[in-house]
């Protein structure tokens, strides 16, 4: 078994004269959670659909669990498409049993396991209701159960949290983290930077059909440190100007100090101690994902951008 769950190399996909994904490389090590980030229309869904061999790339290669995404590999994946497709007329439990069965699970076993999942996601009493009787959010939870039901080696989730209330988002987040504990590789796409920041180990930023950046989130942040120290203290701030700091900015109770060659963190700390102010906070600020994204892509993913870029998949 290869250590890479997903590998894309030089993948390009065009629809007519619109390039949806351009020369895309990505490697996802096994057992990690990767967030695929970018505004809507940036090519996330197209990339995911190529991973599932729903679309074939014009150029480049796609590998899933070490080989071409054939049926054997795909059966080991839990896939949640962007469009929430369900058999509306089917009963909730039966739908889940069907999804388990086509992945080769024993009918009796799926039934029990599906019921456990339904109970866990507060859908127990809906098991015998038709799917169409459920709200959109509930249907999404049912679909989510369908993706984890067969204990897949890899979860590919396209915008799994969109449209859910915060409580349910948290429930799903905790399940994703749990799956990760089990050793499952998780890839999910989102345009919500803050959420990705909360649960991802690795991120891959896409903008305008190109990869901007990818790698370990902590490493990226370290690399992208802006050289700003946030300082909170009680007492007079006159000593700061005596230090010869140039960029001092007040943000709430804190002072944000931009470090220079002659003013590193240690010097500031020493000066503060010497001055006798009582320190409340001293922190090397790391940029948020949003800031990193803006720095690299030039514009922030925002809801209006989402609408403008709209339909392209």
């Amino acid at each position: 078994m290869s250590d890479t769950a997903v590998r894309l190399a030089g993948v390009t996909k065009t629809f007519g004269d619109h390039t949806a994904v351009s020369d895309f490389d990505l490697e996802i090590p096994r057992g990690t959670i990767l967030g695929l980030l970018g505004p809507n229309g940036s090519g996330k869904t197209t990339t995911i659909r190529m991973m599932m061999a729903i679309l074939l790339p014009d150029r480049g290669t796609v590998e899933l669990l070490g080989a071409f995404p054939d049926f054997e590999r795909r059966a080991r994946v839990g896939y949640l498409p962007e469009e929430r497709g369900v058999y509306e007329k089917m009963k909730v439990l039966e739908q889940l049993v069907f999804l388990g069965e086509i992945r080769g699970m024993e009918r009796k076993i799926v039934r029990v396991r599906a019921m456990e999942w339904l109970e866990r996601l507060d859908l127990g009493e809906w098991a015998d209701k038709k799917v169409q009787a459920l709200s959109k959010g509930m249907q999404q939870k049912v679909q989510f159960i369908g993706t984890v039901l067969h204990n897949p080696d890899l979860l590919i989730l396209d915008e799994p949290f969109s449209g859910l209330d915060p409580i349910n988002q948290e429930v799903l987040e905790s399940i994703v983290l749990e799956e990760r504990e089990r050793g499952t590789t998780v890839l999910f796409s989102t345009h919500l930077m803050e959420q990705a920041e909360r649960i991802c180990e690795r991120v891959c930023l896409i903008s305008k059909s190109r990869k901007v950046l990818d790698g370990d989130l902590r490493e990226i942040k370290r690399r992208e440190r802006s050289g700003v120290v946030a300082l909170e203290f009680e007492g007079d701030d006159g000593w700061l100007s005596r230090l010869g700091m140039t960029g001092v900015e007040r943000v709430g109770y804190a002072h944000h100090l931009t470090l220079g060659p002659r003013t590193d963190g240690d010097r500031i700390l020493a000066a503060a101690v010497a001055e006798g102010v009582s320190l409340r906070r001293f922190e090397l600020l790391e940029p948020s994902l949003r800031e990193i994204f803006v720095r690299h892509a030039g514009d922030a993913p925002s809801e209006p951008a989402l609408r403008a870029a709209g339909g392209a998949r």
Partner: protein
Amino acid sequence: MRQVWAVLRREYVERVRTKGFIFSTIAIPVLMLGSIGLSAFMAVRAERSERQLALVDFTGRLGEEVADGMAAAGYDIEVVGRDVGMEELDRRVLDDEIEGFVVLDEETLLEGVFAYRSKDSPGRIRRTLLEGVVVETVLEIRLSATETTAGVRELLGGGRLTFERLGEQVSEAEEISGIATGFAGAIILYMSMFLYGAFVLRSVLDEKRNRVVEVVISAVTPGRLMLGKILGVGSMGMTQLGIWAACAALIGLLGVPMLAARLPQADLSRIVELLPGAGALVLLLVYFLLGFFLFASLFAAVGAMCNTEEEAQQANFPVVMLLLIPFMLQMFSIDGRGFAWIDWAALFPFFSPILMYPRAVSGSVEWWMVALSLVFMVLAVGATAWVAGRIYRVGILMQGKRPTLRELVRWVREA
């Protein structure tokens, strides 16, 4: 295999459980039998329930006989005297006191011509009956006036053709039974292939439209999915046809003897003779299964290349024609006779169920033609499934506009 089974079961259970299935299973035979029964009932009733007829006889010799004849046929007829004027009778008709009246005069006695005066033209049944009764009565009187032997008078009963077949012995009842079975079979085949084929299209289209297929296809190969789907819908169709067949058999086995016991005077042995034999039923099943597979794959391919119901209705056209053309041809040649080229057209696999089945059971084609059509159909099922499977495989994941014919050819080549 488990996957095909899971798809099959889902398709079958989800369909059989619907109210639509239960309703159509009950309603279709009830409606069909009902409409036949009702129209027959209405025709008879309309004829009987009408108002009284009157009859004026200016000859003085025909009146009683004709009135008796009409009364025997169930008409309420009153012979009025010559003294009642024609104006008076016309008035009674116009005032809706009577339905109409018959005028018999010397001309009737000479040439059998007579007048019927009414506001509404007489129906076919009444016209034939009146003519028959009057002409018979006139002949009776005219013949009895001349010195004729009884032998000639017997001719009045009408002549009769008795057919004597040379070669293979087939009774008349068998022959009628064959034609009737063939005709009914053609209708059943046409309707069931159309109906259940459309279910397949629907099912494929729905799955594609709501994108469930993207999840399903991540675990099931398109070929297995298509096969499971067709088998599922087919099983549903067989269930429905089976229920109908069982009901028909029940009526045949229990109903006919019961009817015979209650109406000993009616000769019901003829009805029994007209029922199709087991061979004809097995052949019907064979043609249904082959025909269903043939059309179901076509319908599945159409469903896979469309995105909306409207698109599907247009794209469906060629497939529907493949069903409609043989059905029309069959209507032109109900007894399986007539145009020899239709016999040959019946060898075209898509036409075979509707055209060859009636010919096979009525015995109007050679047995090797029937066997050949079955061989062709088996080959066609294989070829069609192969082509349709390729279109299906590409189509179900393809969004956007419907493919052109050229794109379709490319799908089939490259899939």
